[in-house]
């Protein structure tokens, strides 16, 4: 079988061509040395061999702080009419594509969120294969997730280009002049025992209630919330409203919230349903690995490894899965 091939020396043209679909963003390395998705002007802005960005692509779909409603005394509450920016996100790894697929299930499910849909429809995704490192653990069957409009599999002198969506198939047709043909090269299989363990735990609905690790984690945790901020599938949000000084208008915002924070479980009058770090940990575990509500039974973890990298006290929830595990023995 033949596949479409983009040579390294055509990458610049490819990036130029992508700007037809929106403002180009991709993995860059900031002046501080942090890998981050950001605007890309030329090929040299890209950091193609990045492992993982500090903040995942969720920031393109759920801005850290976003106006969700405007209020005027004349019109009441209305949706903001500002259109979402047309953007192309280049170089998204499979784990982050999986993360976006999960967010799609949450925000485009039974009660679709209109602002999310607006941002999602305006975002074109170009995936990129990656090399695993000791922190991450995604599963090989998902190397080219179906939600990537285009997916690039890295070879020595270029990329195999495939289209995974209707939009992507249309794009691929326009891309022809830049492509050549190459014999099919199957992507290298990735072994992920951790993902299997995690899914088995989720299937059993296990919360490891007797594990001493809970106390261990809770004793060390600083409640900094970094694991949640950098998680590609953490989407908890707080809702705020600010009245303008004119007394006639107001703005309602949603902004990233964090289940490790004490206020997350508070209700009116100050009662807190999750006053201890242990309880907040369990809440995070339940949401991340076992799922809430309509997505109960669907693990949200995509194995990107960010939480393991950023935790200042080296807490690793996946240690729970290794305990007494017979699956991979």
């Amino acid at each position, binding site marked *: 079988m033949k596949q479409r091939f983009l040579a390294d020396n055509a990458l610049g043209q490819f990036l130029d061509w992508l700007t037809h679909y929106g403002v180009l963003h991709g993995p860059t390395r900031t002046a501080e040395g942090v890998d981050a998705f950001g605007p890309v002007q030329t090929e040299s802005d890209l950091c193609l061999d990045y492992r993982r960005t500090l903040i995942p692509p969720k920031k393109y779909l759920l801005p850290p702080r976003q106006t969700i*409603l405007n*209020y005027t*005394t004349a019109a*009441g*509450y*209305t*949706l903001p009419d500002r259109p979402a920016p047309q953007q192309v996100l280049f170089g998204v790894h499979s784990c982050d594509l999986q993360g976006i697929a999960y967010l799609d299930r*949450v*925000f485009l499910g039974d*009660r*679709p*969120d*209109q602002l999310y849909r607006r941002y999602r429809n305006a975002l074109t995704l170009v995936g990129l294969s990656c090399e695993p490192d000791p922190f991450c653990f995604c599963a090989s069957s998902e190397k080219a997730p179906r939600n990537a409009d285009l997916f690039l599999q890295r070879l020595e002198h270029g990329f195999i280009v495939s289209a995974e969506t209707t939009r992507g198939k249309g794009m691929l047709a326009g891309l022809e002049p830049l492509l050549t043909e190459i014999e099919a090269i199957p992507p290298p299989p990735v072994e992920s025992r951790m993902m299997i363990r995690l899914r088995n735990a989720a299937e059993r609905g296990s919360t490891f209630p007797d594990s001493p690790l809970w106390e261990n984690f809770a004793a060390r945790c600083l409640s900094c919330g970094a694991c949640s901020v950098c998680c590609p599938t953490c*989407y*908890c*949000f*707080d*809702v*705020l*409203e*600010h*009245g*303008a000084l004119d*007394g006639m208008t*107001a703005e*309602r915002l*949603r902004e990233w*919230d964090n*289940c490790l924070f004490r206020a*997350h*479980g*508070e*209700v*009116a*009058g100050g*009662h807190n*349903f*999750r006053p201890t770090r242990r*309880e907040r940990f*369990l*809440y995070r575990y*339940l*949401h991340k690995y*076992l*799922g*809430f*509500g*309509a997505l*109960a039974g669907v693990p949200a973890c995509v194995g990107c490894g960010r939480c393991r990298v950023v935790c200042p006290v080296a807490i690793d929830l996946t240690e729970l899965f290794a305990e007494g595990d017979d699956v991979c023995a």
Partner: protein
Amino acid sequence: MSAPELNSIPISARIQTIRRLTADTALFRLQLDGDRTFPFIPGQFVQLSVPGGGEVPISPADLPAVDGTIELCVRRFGHVTSLLHRSRTGDRVGIRGPFGNGFPVDAMAGKDVLLLAGGLGIAPLRSLLFHLLRHRSDIRSLTLMYGAREPAVMLFKDELLELATTGSLRLLLTVDFLSDTGQAEPACNVGLLPALLKGVQLEPGRSCAAVCGPPALYRCTIDELLLAGVAEDDIYLSLERRMKCGVGLCCHCAVGQLLCCCEGPVFSYRDIKNIPGAL
């Protein structure tokens, strides 16, 4: 406008009347704009918006009205409710909803129904009470046990006493302690709510209980209800959580893996008894 939009954008309403019930609690009757009506099931909740302040989840205290009004009993507790309490008749507010499941009124048919309210928990149970009184012949008996901290903060007392005179409702009131004046209130017990359940005997499978109140109320009444013979399946608990979105997205209100805003706020005791931190 499609249903999801109704759930994400507040409908405009005006404050029609404000009835002060206690020093910090008032009953707000809202009139929805246009010819809108607002159907809901007792026990469901709405998101009430006070412009410039934000939103709070509140369970309506009456029944859906044909005239497009809705009654909310609100205590001054935080930022939004303080703003609401400073509002005047005619001021604009917003409403989204209804959200959640509400009380399973059909499952109460033919049964001895016990309503247990603590403090502000009387609000959603007043809605359920009105529903059951309207369909009184569908159920076998109706008892309301209502406990307040002290006589001065007992809500809807006169109204409840009047309803009880019709004979279709057995009413038991209690206060945790008497006021400073030490004056005994007529028709009112002194003691905690669970004390009213002592010695009560109901028929398992033919009785049910709906409970709403502060977190401590659930922990101290469940055992009494089970002892009285109410089955685990027939104890309905309306749980309080901070529902910020109401549509299962913001993830502040999970009870175990159940979302209070979608799968609750009313849960049977059996569904949540093994969930750590649920009660």
